[in-house]
């Protein structure tokens, strides 16, 4: 089984009022193809830091992040931008769509940034919107969409460039229980079918049964609890 996302001995510290605070301490994680891993933990346990490091937004003080076996340390800003564009799909809290783009334009933008061929892009957008049941909303602006629809568009946007890794930051935070379940179920299905390694940071215990593994962030490391 291939591990598309590997974090090796990640350590990260913050300077906080003159005191060094270790947020992540030799954290290790391997996520295999098709797997959805949930990461739980109280606030302040370092979930955001963990996700930022896995998503090439933050350079860890120690350790290596491997995406499809390739290390992302020592890259410059532009290279990291390109890695995020092509290798990582982000799904944020409350979707964070661009307000002035219609649903299909949200995806076209990602295709354009990645210099995707126009015909190929149009085809892929249709496929993704079909798959996520958004075809009838393709020319709606985000403010006309329901919370669940918005989060589905965010998933489609994350999948647009066929990334290796999906990273979700509390995707159910602004949704009610059943919508939240739908979104996570969809995330799990897409990860499994398309062979992505998916990591979801969440507080929502109701969605845990849909995940392949549940890990807890404690004392700077990830612990599995049964």
């Amino acid at each position: 089984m291939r591990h598309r996302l590997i974090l090796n001995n990640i350590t990260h510290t913050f300077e906080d009022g003159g005191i060094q605070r270790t947020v992540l301490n030799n954290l290790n994680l391997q996520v295999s193809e098709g797997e959805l891993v949930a990461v739980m933990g109280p606030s302040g346990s370092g979930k955001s830091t963990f996700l930022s490091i896995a998503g090439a937004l933050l350079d860890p003080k120690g350790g290596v992040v491997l995406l499809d076996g390739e290390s992302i340390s020592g890259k410059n800003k532009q290279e990291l931008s390109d890695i995020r564009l092509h290798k990582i799909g982000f799904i944020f809290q409350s979707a964070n769509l661009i307000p002035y783009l219609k649903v299909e334009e949200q995806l076209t933008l990602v295709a354009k940034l990645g210099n995707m061929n126009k015909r190929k892009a149009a085809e892929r957008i249709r496929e993704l919107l079909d798959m996520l049941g958004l075809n009838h909303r393709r020319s709606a602006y985000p403010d006309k969409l329901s919370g669940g629809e918005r989060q589905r568009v965010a998933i489609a946007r994350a999948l647009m460039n066929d990334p290796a890794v999906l990273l979700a930051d509390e995707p159910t935070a602004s949704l009610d229980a059943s919508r939240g379940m739908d979104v996570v179920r969809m995330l799990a299905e897409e990860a499994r079918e398309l062979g992505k390694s998916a990591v979801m940071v969440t507080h929502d215990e109701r969605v845990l049964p849909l995940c392949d593994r549940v890990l807890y962030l404690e004392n700077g490391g990830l612990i599995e609890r049964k």
Partner: protein
Amino acid sequence: MYLAIREMRFVKVRYSLISIIMLLVAFLVLFVTGLARGLAYDNAASIQNMDATHFIMEKDSNHRFTRSQISEQVLLQASSIVGEDDVQPLGVKMTTMTAEGKIGKLDVTLLGINPEGWLMPKLTEGAAITATGTGQVLVDRKLKDSGIGLGTVLIDQASGLKWTVSGFVNHESFSHSPAVFLNEHDWQQLQLTTITRTSSATKWTDSTYNAVAVKANTHQKEQLTAVLADAEIVTKADAVSAIPGYKEEQGSLWMMIIFLFIISSFVLAVFFYVITIQKSSQFGILKAIGTRTGYLVRSVALQVLLLSAGSLVVSMLLIQVTESILPSGMPFLLQSSTIALTSSAFVIMSLAGSLLSVWKVTKIEALDAIGRTAA
């Protein structure tokens, strides 16, 4: 590109409001520029119309035609250097006249020229003056408004000399006063009366002028400077700006224009800065999903460019309309070269105004996108 245009399409009201402000500023810039150019031309038209590169004036005359005195000898010396065809004598005298049979006085500038030379203006009405005739003058069309017609006799208040209007010319003025052209003979006549009246000790056997207009290249100019010790070679631009009132008038108008440029730049700077701050979490998201900073910077710059160029185009149309309804007494002159220069300066200033926002965009961290609840 993609983002910039779609955003402007989506938040139409916001961008229309700012483009209306830009439109008004651009209109004002073009209008004041046209007025400045128009006044400049109206002020110094006669000198600007002259096909000369330089004027030879007396030293210490501060580049002023009216203060300078040049003798026939200088004229001859100059002809020997640049050639007879490229040298023309010029007399300039501001005076007050009355028209026979009319009440009221007129301020005019007398210009003594050689009617066969290249300083002779183009006649629009009546008969031209000749080198040999006496007592005949050409006057600027503007004097028609004061009741001057063909055949009207003008009396110079200072010398008492009388001239008959034989023809009209267009756009000829000096220091905003209408020009009156006389031939060399009449000019010398005028000089003689003035000199006898001032009872100067100097004997003036030669003809005198105020300046000599020349067409000279750089090399010839240097030669002239070397040979004519008592004279100064003044460029046409310097001579024009030394005309009484010219610099002061242009100075205040140019200050307005420069301020308008600065204002437009600041208006755009503030608008885009505020919008950029509002959108900073959005820029964070875009950066997080892999948008390069350069793309976002280009997007902001493109919006500024579209706004300023769009407002300029509309304001140019408005200027065309305005120009056609302006009263003829209002000096307004806007050549396409001036429009091009002003427009590019406007666009450049607008882009300078967007620098603050560009700087802000580059400072936004993609990291901020994580752990945020609102878009």
